[in-house]
């Protein structure tokens, strides 16, 4: 069973709002993507088997027989990249002011299904873009296309505003690249 689009988008927004790695968020992402039958652990879970003073930690996932540790998606580039859907490529760019944006595109270079213009770290930004890419392909295709178009318009507007502010040619080039991905994806979705 696939995670629903709203859940994925909410998680993407939380990644974009986060200021650093977050183990609870890791657990929620893992439950949305990999372990749909499980849920993030709560302090009282499996209480009678707990060692006193050692409740489940924020990154633990409840299972019927104990706990799993969630991968460190929000802290590790390696783990964050495992969220990128099969057959997709990533593009990551970091501004002089430290702000990060990431795009997740079909690796044939003619589509982009997720973009995140405001992650605090590269790992968070890739998480957000990958979750948006997964959200774009979840659920009804027609409705998804319209939502994607709106999301893209918002993201491109934000990115264009930043590019004008900095005036760096390299950055504008990357933005153009991402824009092309985004608009091609919108056209493709619309045609579909």
């Amino acid at each position: 069973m696939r995670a629903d689009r709203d859940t994925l988008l909410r998680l993407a927004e939380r990644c974009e709002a986060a200021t650093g790695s977050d183990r609870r968020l890791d657990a929620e992402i893992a439950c949305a993507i990999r372990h749909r039958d499980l849920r993030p652990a709560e302090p009282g879970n499996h209480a009678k088997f707990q060692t006193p003073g050692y409740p489940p930690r924020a990154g633990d996932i409840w299972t019927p027989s104990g706990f799993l540790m969630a991968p460190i998606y929000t802290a590790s580039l390696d783990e964050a990249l495992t969220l990128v859907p099969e057959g997709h490529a990533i593009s990551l760019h970091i501004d002089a002011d430290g702000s990060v944006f990431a795009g997740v595109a079909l690796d044939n270079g003619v589509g982009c299904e997720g973009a995140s213009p405001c992650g605090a770290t590269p790992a968070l930004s890739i998480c957000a873009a990958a979750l948006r890419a997964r959200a774009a392909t979840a659920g009804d295709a027609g409705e998804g296309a319209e939502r994607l178009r709106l999301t893209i318009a918002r993201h491109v507007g934000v990115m264009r505003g930043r590019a004008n502010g900095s005036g760096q040619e390299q950055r504008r080039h990357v933005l153009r690249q991402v824009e092309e991905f985004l608009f091609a994806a919108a056209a493709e979705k619309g045609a579909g």
Partner: protein
Amino acid sequence: MRAKAPDRATLLALADRCEQATGPDRELDGAIATSLGWTDVHGSVLRADFQGGRPPGVIDWWDHVPRFTASLDAARTISEWVLLHASDIGADGLALVELGNPTTTPTGLVRGVGYGGGQHALVLALCAAALRALAAEASAP
């Protein structure tokens, strides 16, 4: 602190090897580690900067040398230059990584390209760029 300043030519040669690699390579990991100051001692390795208040210790080579060519997180520890751009398809379909020197103005820039393709190309591109960053530092006055 590293035991010795890495040799510029060695670092550039290692960067080229990373770009030519087709996937993770432990031998290359070992060569990178050596250039960073890890020292081979009778089949094990004494890491020169592994003191941190503790006495220096002999640690096993293959268990402890980071998997630079397999992990972006490990590859990022090679150099302190900041990641500016990374793309699976940034260099005409090849993986591209660009690092900037945070201490210079205008920002120094080095590039690494992953020619190997596949999921490890980005890691190899980052290794190459990071080694070129070290080489740039080694050649600085």
